[in-house]
């Protein structure tokens, strides 16, 4: 009887963690605005750099950010990766593109999904725009944007990525 048993060297013991997230002033403002379809950044009073999502302070200068700016939903690809493995608990099917995107008027990137594109054609400097969920599905979440898709605009030179005005790239070239 006992000699029929397999040797047990380990058992699965899942850990579940549930947190209450206290957003703080900057992220709370961002989340309440994104629920209305607005992308709200904050400018550092010292270095003038614009953060989105704002965390309430500029980590470079160590000062609070208070001045708000509503940014457009157009962005530039700063870099990206084509991922061939699934994300835990996420239904998205590989291969998919996670891009580091900088919104027009912002000076820092965030990551988001790119879609409606040929993976092999995605490139640094490419122009993209948000594709939003239907308004009735909007929540306090960056997931209100389903993904970003390519825009038919000329690429941004690398030196200009992260330095575009709120008016965007084409506005820049007209100036």
């Amino acid at each position, binding site marked *: 009887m006992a000699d029929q048993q397999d040797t047990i*060297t*380990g058992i699965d*013991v899942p*850990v579940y*963690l549930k947190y209450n*997230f206290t*957003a703080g002033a900057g*992220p709370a403002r*961002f*989340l309440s605005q994104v629920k209305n379809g607005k992308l709200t950044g904050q400018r*550092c009073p010292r*270095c003038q*750099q*614009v*953060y989105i*999502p704002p*965390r309430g302070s*500029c*980590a*470079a200068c160590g000062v609070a950010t208070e001045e708000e700016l509503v940014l457009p939903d157009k962005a530039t690809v*700063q*870099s*990206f*990766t*084509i*991922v*061939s*493995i699934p*994300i*835990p608990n*996420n239904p998205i099917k590989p*291969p998919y593109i*996670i*891009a*580091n995107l900088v919104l027009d008027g912002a*000076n*820092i990137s*965030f*990551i*988001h*999904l790119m879609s409606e594109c040929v993976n092999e054609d995605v490139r*640094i400097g490419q122009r993209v725009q948000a594709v939003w969920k239907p308004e009735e599905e909007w929540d*306090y*979440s*960056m*997931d209100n*944007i389903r993904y970003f898709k390519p825009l038919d605009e000329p690429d941004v030179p*690398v030196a200009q990525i*992260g330095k575009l005005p709120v008016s965007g790239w084409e506005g820049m070239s007209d100036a």
Partner: protein
Amino acid sequence: MANLAAVVGIGQTKYTTKRDDVSIAGLVREAAQNALDDAGIGWDDIDAVILGKAPDMFEGVIMPEIYLTDALGCNGKPMLRVHTAGSVGGSTALVAASHVQSGAFNRVLTVAFEKQSESNAMWALSNPQPFSTHLNAGAGGYFAPIIREYMRRSNAPDDVGIKVAVKDRLHGARNPLAHLQRPDITMEEVKESFMLWDPIRFLESCPSSDGACAMVIANEELAEQSAKPPAWIRGVAMRSEPTMYAGREEVNPQAGKDCAADVYAQAGITDPRRDLDCAEVYVPFSWYEPMWLENLGFAPEGEGWKLTMEGATSLDEGGDIPWNPSGGVLSSNPIGASGMIRFAEAARQVRGDAGDHQVEGARLALGHAYGGGAQFFAMWVVGADKA
């Protein structure tokens, strides 16, 4: 001015996918006992214990240092746990060194570990934040865009990462403790391996390992009496910077440059490629070799890949500055221990005790670790001579 301190004992476990014959306590005990044996001392000779590991969520054991006090002989002794993400093995060794350099302790034991087979590192690193999309695809997903940007800037040929992947596995094949034993690996095989996080291929990534590393660090008087040659600690430095700020230089982080400048100044190093005999550097994805060659001042910005392609960092090609002769993180990656392994392997080199991966005549070596979003850096320089 700090007192002199030296590594007088080193102990490691054989790195492997799954150590199901021991608990976490058994794993750290094994490395610690090996270090004590190497130093020729017993548990009673230790004044304090400094322990490090990566995030608790990896194994789901919260504050494991409490659970491990018995296994590490800490009863009645000071013990401290260090945590700086992936760089923790390095910073743990530095905290241990500072205990001795301060003069407060004569001889300390330091241990770092990870038992990845009991964990899900990708899950543990992917906890959602409400203001961001939940797209964290593990460490590779984070570092791949940074590598892509390095490739763009440097115009390096595509096979630099492939060459590092082969070179470090060939080094690892000389080290019986290394997890991956691939003496037959080829450039073609790496190139054909699965593209996980473009541009990072499967064989350009580190494995997932179980393992622990330990060191005994002693003051000058005790080190002079030690049976085996000590590795004198000639410089120690830590730096950090925020993960995210506008204008952050992610490819060549300022904190890494500052940390290197500090540790070199202490060790009297003005040209790291010339003055150092070898380096153990935290390279979990192959392209980080050329990137860190530049960040650490071994090559001008944009030219690190040339050293790699010339074979300068290869033991097998007779390079002048071998990097990761032990096989590096690409050959063994028990995450929390990986930084300490770099520090310990640097010490093995200058003790002349590195076996088949010994760099001939090594007198001065760099140990390096980085962690988080390449924002925590820990480095030391160890030498065969006191000064």
